[in-house]
């Protein structure tokens, strides 16, 4: 690689110099790689365009780089070849990998301080800011698009099945009772489904019940936590879901967003997924629907606590010039504007990541006009505990894949809930150990 690198680097250097010579001298141009599609992509391009028009010194190039893992793999390859983007959008599961990449990233708090920009982590919603803050209290990345897990239900089906469409089930036993009624009345062929099963039914589920998912404060306190999501509560819930699958109340439809289409096509009556699905569902559903808080078990002490975030944050890559860092800082300041944050929240279904954006949206009457859009916010704006702050694990992406595989084995009846979760914990712990080997502090 060494030879190839230097040749490649020289080539890049030459081409960049040419590019620079051609463009006006004073403008500092930086690359911003992201993974937003559809309407969210338009919104990001719009942000970049407005930023570029607002001043003359800096130019941000927003580039779509495929899915989150693709964008990240691409940026890593680019970093190794010495041509990383200045700003990279990284999914929440990639957080630990980025944090341990010393030298490859520059903490956002540092970037802001060096550029002389004011940056106060306290303006952010605690559950969001806490996720991207290291053990020393330094905020490492810039929170951008965060979502959380919520419950959607089809009001028309509820009415047809003889249920009260204005009283969504609040607990899992109530979900189950509603599912039985929907099935028996034939109001829908599929009663309940879930997207992002690992995130919703295990990660967020644990935080929501103030139950530990992994030791060392769910991985916030060090690189070598042990997974413990095979506890009695999780086994009970996954076992229940297996039972519902057998009875036909729960229909498994895929690991990612595939189940969402089953909901907005009208096939499934109830869905748990990301709050950010709101826009897509609203666009496609030809029936009345509503958002409700994630169901819980009422007999568990401390439940409901808070749900945890998904989505992504913006990281600043290492090895850039002072001017480039300044450009990144200016762009972040631009994005931090409460008005902009409020628009982002209202149009995408992502959380308002600053308290000011939340207040602004509340004052504008948005929540009254769009009932249910504040469910996610209310689930998040509480004081978090060590068990509910979030989950940060090395090789989290692989651990999620492992959990997906084992859950599929449970839904199809190949394993019991206990066997499946035990296997997922054991296999996941191997991944964490592997990660800890290369990520020594």
């Amino acid at each position, binding site marked *: 690689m060494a030879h190839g690198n230097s040749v490649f680097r020289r080539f890049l250097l030459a081409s960049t110099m040419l590019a620079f010579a051609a463009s006006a001298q004073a403008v500092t141009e930086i690359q911003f790689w992201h993974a937003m599609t559809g309407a969210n992509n338009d919104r990001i391009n719009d942000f970049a365009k407005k930023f570029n028009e607002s001043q003359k010194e800096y130019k941000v190039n927003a580039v779509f780089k495929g899915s989150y893992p693709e964008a990240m793999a691409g940026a*890593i390859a680019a970093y190794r070849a010495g041509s990383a983007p200045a700003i990279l959008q990284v999914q929440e599961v990639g957080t630990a990998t980025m944090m341990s990449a010393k030298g490859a990233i520059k903490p956002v708090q540092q970037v802001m301080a060096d550029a002389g920009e004011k940056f106060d982590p306290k303006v952010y919603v605690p559950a969001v800011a806490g996720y991207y803050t290291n053990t020393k209290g330094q905020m490492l990345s810039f929170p951008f698009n965060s979502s959380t897990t919520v419950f959607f239900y089809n009001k028309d089906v509820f009415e047809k099945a003889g249920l009260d469409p204005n009283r969504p089930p609040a607990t899992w036993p109530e979900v189950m009772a509603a599912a039985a009624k929907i099935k028996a009345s034939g109001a829908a062929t599929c009663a309940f489904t879930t997207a992002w099963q690992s995130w919703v039914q295990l990660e967020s589920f644990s935080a929501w019940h103030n139950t530990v998912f992994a030791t060392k404060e769910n991985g916030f306190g060090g690189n070598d936590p042990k997974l413990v999501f095979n506890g009695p509560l999780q086994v009970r819930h996954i076992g229940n879901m297996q039972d519902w699958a057998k009875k036909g109340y729960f229909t498994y*439809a895929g690991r990612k967003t595939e189940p969402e289409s089953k909901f907005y096509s009208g096939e499934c009556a109830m869905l748990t997924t990301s709050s950010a699905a709101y826009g897509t569902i609203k666009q496609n559903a030809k029936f009345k629907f509503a958002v409700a808080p994630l169901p819980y078990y009422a007999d568990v002490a401390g439940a409901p606590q808070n749900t945890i975030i998904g989505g992504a944050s913006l990281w600043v890559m290492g090895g850039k010039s002072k001017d480039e860092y300044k450009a990144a800082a200016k762009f972040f300041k631009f994005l931090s504007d409460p008005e902009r944050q409020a628009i982002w929240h209202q149009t995408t279904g992502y959380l308002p990541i600053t308290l000011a954006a939340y207040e602004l949206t509340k004052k504008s009457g948005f929540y009254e006009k769009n009932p249910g859009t504040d469910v996610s916010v209310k689930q998040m704006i509480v004081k978090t505990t060590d068990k509910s702050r979030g989950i940060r694990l090395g090789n989290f992406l692989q651990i999620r894949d492992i959990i997906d*595989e084992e859950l599929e084995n449970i839904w*199809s009846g190949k394993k019991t809930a206990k066997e499946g979760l035990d296997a997922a914990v054991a296999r996941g712990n191997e991944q964490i150990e*592997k990660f800890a080997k290369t*990520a020594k502090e």
Partner: protein
Amino acid sequence: MEKRARFRSAWVPYALILPQLAVTLVFFFWPAGQAVYQSVYIQDAFGGNLQFVGLDNFRDLFNDEHYLASFKVTAVFSVLVAGLGLSVSLLLAVFADRIVRGATVYKTLLIWPYAVAPAIAAVLWVFLFNPSIGIAAYWLKRAGVDWNFVLDGDQALMLVVAAAVWKQISYNFLFFLAGLQSIPKSLLEAAAIDGAGPVKRFLTIVFPLLSPTTFFLLVINVVYAFIDTFGIIDAATSGGPGQSTEILVYKLYKDGFKGLDLGSSGAQSVILMLILITLTVFQFRFVEKKVHY
């Protein structure tokens, strides 16, 4: 006596093969060398913290029951893809060869799927068999089959095998048809006069004379099933449900590009490389001996 053309100077032949050699070096040997190099190190995603670990990555792999399970999936998958792919296309080629009227239309239609990219082929099949909206899934359900390949591993495997075979049939078909047409008609006519029926003629004359083609296609199809079906798996099932369709090349991709574990991914490439080399050598040394040229 020597009739072959000879080069006067020593370097001309080398110069002539140099471009091909350069391509092979840059696109095959260099990446392969990289894989071997990576396989004995562990490193974090950004290339920092490089540590030499010897054969640890390999040892971890062979202690990992899920990696071993992936071998089994790959074996079943490639036997099915190569076996079905070859037999179906041979059947089609034999029939196409017998047709007199409208032969071009049939041939053209049969060749079409080859122009479809693997990922697109997968999307088409998934669309047909999608448990909630697919028309084929609807028929299956009407026939009483509990069709849900999202959850049923065997069904998922059948689906990716079908897509992979469908995609490869055209290629096999072309070669088989060419092979069939190069068999001298006089041989078949002589056999017919001697009283051999179509089946007997196929078994005793056509199939043996076709064996070089069959052998060539066997090698190509096994390699295809091992490597090129990646796009189909990725678009149709992403290796799931569970690990039912996670063939070696998919696991390698998942660990390397999504999991960013370059050490293990490098070790897996080396193993895959060795398997393919062994298989190809085996096929040439042993299967080839049974082949009539």
